């Protein structure tokens, strides 16, 4: 690593903000002091509204439209960025200081081939001459571990998968041999396994090339893997700046502590501690500490006097009046344990019997030409029994069919085969029109994105009134009373009734969605990635809410997620899906320990814990599954433990590891246990 001690990026007292309609100046960043040396890998951590992305872009001299510099400066290699001319900025950007954007698919120009876009970067920022450029492009693509670079060079961005697009963006950034890389949430939206691979690549690149990195993210697991140093931001300020070990193992700022405590851990079957309230909006901070309103340790001094960044004995910077007290506290412990009652005696609520679901349908032309839809269904051969009061999780990556199954249970998509039985004897008809109102009432669905699942033109009162009118035929006074009651249960006051969704935060919106589901007094609630779109601390609050409501009403949950740690916190049982087929099912503790289905093993290995010593195990390649599906085991193309021809031709049998735990694999579970245990030691 290049330990040249000159600062590469220096930010002094930088404040950035915008003027709103009433001509008030609202700050997004307040008094940022930050120095980044050559070769350092720094993580910028914060939740939405912390200003981390704005800060990263400001380092490149870029301000989004309404923003302007209120005070201070930022410099790159001793040149004040905001004072440079456009030409000088153009030379630095993409060259010595390069950005790897958040959504590479959107950030690559759709009408240009990949090779050309990388070539453009080379032409602008490197000394490679015209003749040598094509070869250099191939080199770069190889460096980011893309297969078949000669073919890829002629492809358009939309022809690549998400992971491939991200690697191309990295290659493009490396073209100018940068001194520093800015990474703006580069793995958001990628699958768990893809994300792990891309992070390993970044980590290796940092070591090989000695490039400095500023890694902006809300994901502490990713930062733990890639960064040496962590800077925590809250409400536009830096509140903590230390080494990755210091910040992740023993944070000395109350916010950082709460943040870490709210992250669900893979090895802990407990609900992470939730943090009430939300960060102040720009301009609402007041004179004291921005975090005082939510801080458990806040004193009078905190609300009246804004703390400055102080240096602790161990060399960290922290913005807190009471940091010494925080130092005395023990490391954040596990959250609240979840009470689980024995469920094997509970009556059956839902049973899926050999369910197959297909997305393809025939258009007008196909019908005229008499063509049948392709044969392989999206989801196949799914059989599950769900018991009253339990929480069963459906886990998988994209294409696993987990959301598809939920939608089929809800009746939004028809099943192609098999049946779904409710409460032991009622058959759930495939389409909603055929189900009776009582059935519909007892099964409720909550969606992932609260921005989309609430009608933007309806007030909260109207949103809650819909199910009340439909199922109970209530009117006015009763409507109002019930709505207030349910709002109180989700910890929102009655003054929320008159609000529109656009006036609520993400967490509040999701609470309204939960309220809407529970106001129907359901028995079974289907949760489709309900916390995936939320900030980590908000996620913890929603998980706590779901758990509490389950205890109060005895509701059964089917909880779809891609996040294994969240599943660990909330669920009793978990079913893993790959390409629409079940691989493994059982109590969470059993499934997460050995023996595991090879896919489970891969998934668990790829999880990034917010711990500096945690090392992911990347056993499967990051490739995109092609259709059509192969005959035999769906995982055969990526399985690190593939036996041989038997996997290619025969569907693996179900093996019973214990009364509740089943694995679907050709390798016997005792063999799996042995091999996997060896691997760990």
């Amino acid at each position, binding site marked *: 690593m290049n330990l040249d001690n000159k600062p590469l990026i220096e930010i002094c007292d930088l404040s950035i903000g915008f003027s709103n309609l009433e001509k008030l100046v609202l700050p997004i960043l307040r008094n940022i002091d930050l120095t980044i040396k050559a070769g350092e890998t720094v993580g910028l951590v914060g939740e939405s509204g912390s200003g981390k992305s704005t800060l990263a872009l400001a380092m490149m001299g870029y301000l989004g439209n309404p923003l302007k510099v209120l005070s201070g400066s930022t410099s790159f290699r001793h040149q004040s960025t905001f004072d440079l001319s456009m030409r000088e900025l153009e030379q630095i950007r993409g060259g010595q200081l390069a950005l790897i954007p958040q959504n590479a698919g959107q950030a690559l120009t759709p009408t240009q081939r990949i090779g050309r876009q990388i070539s453009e970067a080379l032409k602008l920022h490197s000394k490679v001459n015209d003749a040598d450029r094509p070869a250099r492009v191939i080199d770069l693509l190889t460096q980011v571990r893309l297969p078949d670079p000669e073919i890829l060079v002629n492809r358009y961005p939309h022809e690549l998968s998400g992971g491939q697009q991200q690697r191309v963006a990295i290659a493009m950034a490396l073209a100018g041999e940068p001194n520093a890389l800015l990474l703006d949430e580069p793995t958001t939206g990628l699958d768990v396994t893809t994300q792990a691979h891309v992070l390993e690549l970044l980590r290796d690149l940092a070591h090989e090339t000695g490039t400095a990195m500023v890694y902006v993210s809300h994901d502490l697991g990713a930062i733990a893997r890639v960064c040496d140093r962590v800077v925590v931001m809250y409400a536009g300020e830096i509140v903590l700046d230390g080494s990755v070990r210091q910040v992740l193992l023993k944070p000395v700022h109350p916010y950082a502590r709460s943040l870490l405590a709210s992250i669900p851990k893979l090895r802990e079957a407990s609900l992470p501690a939730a943090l*009430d*309230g*939300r960060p*102040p*909006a720009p301009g*609402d901070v007041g004179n004291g500490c921005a975090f005082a*309103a939510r801080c458990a340790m806040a004193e009078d001094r905190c609300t009246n006097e804004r703390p400055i960044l102080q240096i602790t004995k161990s060399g960290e910077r922290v913005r807190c009046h009471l940091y010494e007290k925080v130092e005395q506290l023990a490391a954040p412990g596990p959250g609240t344990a979840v009470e689980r009652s024995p469920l094997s005696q509970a009556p059956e609520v839902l049973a899926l019997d050999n369910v197959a679901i297909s997305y393809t349908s025939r*258009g*007008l032309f196909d*019908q005229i030409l008499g063509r049948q839809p392709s044969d392989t269904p999206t989801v196949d051969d799914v059989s599950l029994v769900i018991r009253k009061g339990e929480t069963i999780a459906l886990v998988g990556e994209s294409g696993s069919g987990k959301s598809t199954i939920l*939608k089929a249970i*809800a*009746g*939004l998509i028809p099943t192609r085969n098999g049946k779904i039985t409710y409460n032991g004897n009622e058959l759930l008809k495939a389409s*909603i029109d055929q*189900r009776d*109102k009582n059935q*519909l*009432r007892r099964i*409720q*669905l909550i*969606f*992932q*994105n609260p921005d*989309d*699942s*609430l*009608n*933007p*033109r*309806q*007030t909260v009162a*109207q949103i809650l009134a*819909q*199910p009340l009118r*439909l199922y109970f035929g209530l009117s006015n006074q009763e409507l109002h009373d019930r709505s207030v009651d349910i709002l109180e249960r989700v*910890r*929102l*006051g009655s*003054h929320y009734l*008159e*609000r*529109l969704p656009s*006036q609520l935060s993400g967490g*509040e919106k999701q609470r309204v969605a939960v309220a809407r589901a529970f106001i*129907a007094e359901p028995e079974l609630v289907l949760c489709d990635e309900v916390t995936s779109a939320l900030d980590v601390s908000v996620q913890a609050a929603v998980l706590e809410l779901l758990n509490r409501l389950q205890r109060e009403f005895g509701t059964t949950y089917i909880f779809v997620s891609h996040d294994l740690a969240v599943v660990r916190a909330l669920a009793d049982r978990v079913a893993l899906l790959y390409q629409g087929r079940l691989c493994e099912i059982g109590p969470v503790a059993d499934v997460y320990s050995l023996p595991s289905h090879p896919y489970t093993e891969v998934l668990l290995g790829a999880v990034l814990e917010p711990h500096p010593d945690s090392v992911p195990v990347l056993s499967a390649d990051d490739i995109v599954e092609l259709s059509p599906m192969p005959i035999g085991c769906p995982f055969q193309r990526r399985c690190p433990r593939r036996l041989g021809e038997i996997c290619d031709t025969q569907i693996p049998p179900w093996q019973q590891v214990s009364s509740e735990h089943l694995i679907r694999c050709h390798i016997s579970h005792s063999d799996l246990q042995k091999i996997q245990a060896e691997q760990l030691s």
Partner: protein
Amino acid sequence: MTAKLSVPIIKNRTQDRLFRVLSDVMARPSGAIGLSLVVFHLVLVVISPFIVPFDYREISALLMLKGPSFEHWFGNDHLGRDIFSRTLLGGREAILVTGIATPIAVLWGSFIGIFFGLVGGRIDEFSMRIVDAFLSLPWILKMLVLIVTFGTGIGVLIPTLAFFYGIPVIRIARAATHDVVARDFISAAKARGHGRISIIRHELLPNVLDTLMVEGAMRWSWMLLAFSSLSFLGFGASPPTPDWGLMIADARGFMSFAPWGVLAPVVFLSSLIIGINLTADALAKALGIDRIQKAPV
């Protein structure tokens, strides 16, 4: 513990929203000008019969093609009639006909468009072929065929305009419906078991209404264009009705030495259409809708 409020309570009832949108439109210069022009013309439609100084039919051989004078502010046309009175009255039939035909067109077009947008599938695909077929014929052809056969009375003009100008609305309503239907809150309503009518009424319409309102305003302006063009060609308003299009057609031949016969109706007609367009523009911006103008249909 309930979360602290950092957003002030805003009234969200429909009346309040209407008021907010209106004031937003007036706040923009284009909106203010546009809306004033439209209101001016609407007021004129109502009060003009009571304020015109002369009878619009009164012919006078002495006053033929006389220029503006103290008595006749805008001069006299080729039959000696007072142009000022005729100009003030000139928009009545046009605004009446288009004012009735536009809401009908938007209503039936939206109804069909939303229906097909929701239904989807084969029926939708096939029906769109029919709509496309209709749209491929030049507008004037379609209308003239009907008008020539059935006459030029209001009883023919209104349904004809309403029918043919409702067809493009089908496409727009369908597209807007498609945009909304893909969103989760519609799936959520479906999953709860709401009936189709209820979903259209409570979930879909409030979200589609904005687009339809702006489209309605634009439809009105295009319909006015069509009506005055028809009058100009002799297929719209019939003499002696004072109509701007008709007046321009009549006065055209004398333009070289008596341009006032043409200028007055030109100014009034253009101001109304521009006013509607400016208002629609400002309305779209106030409602936050992106609009891409299509080629004239």
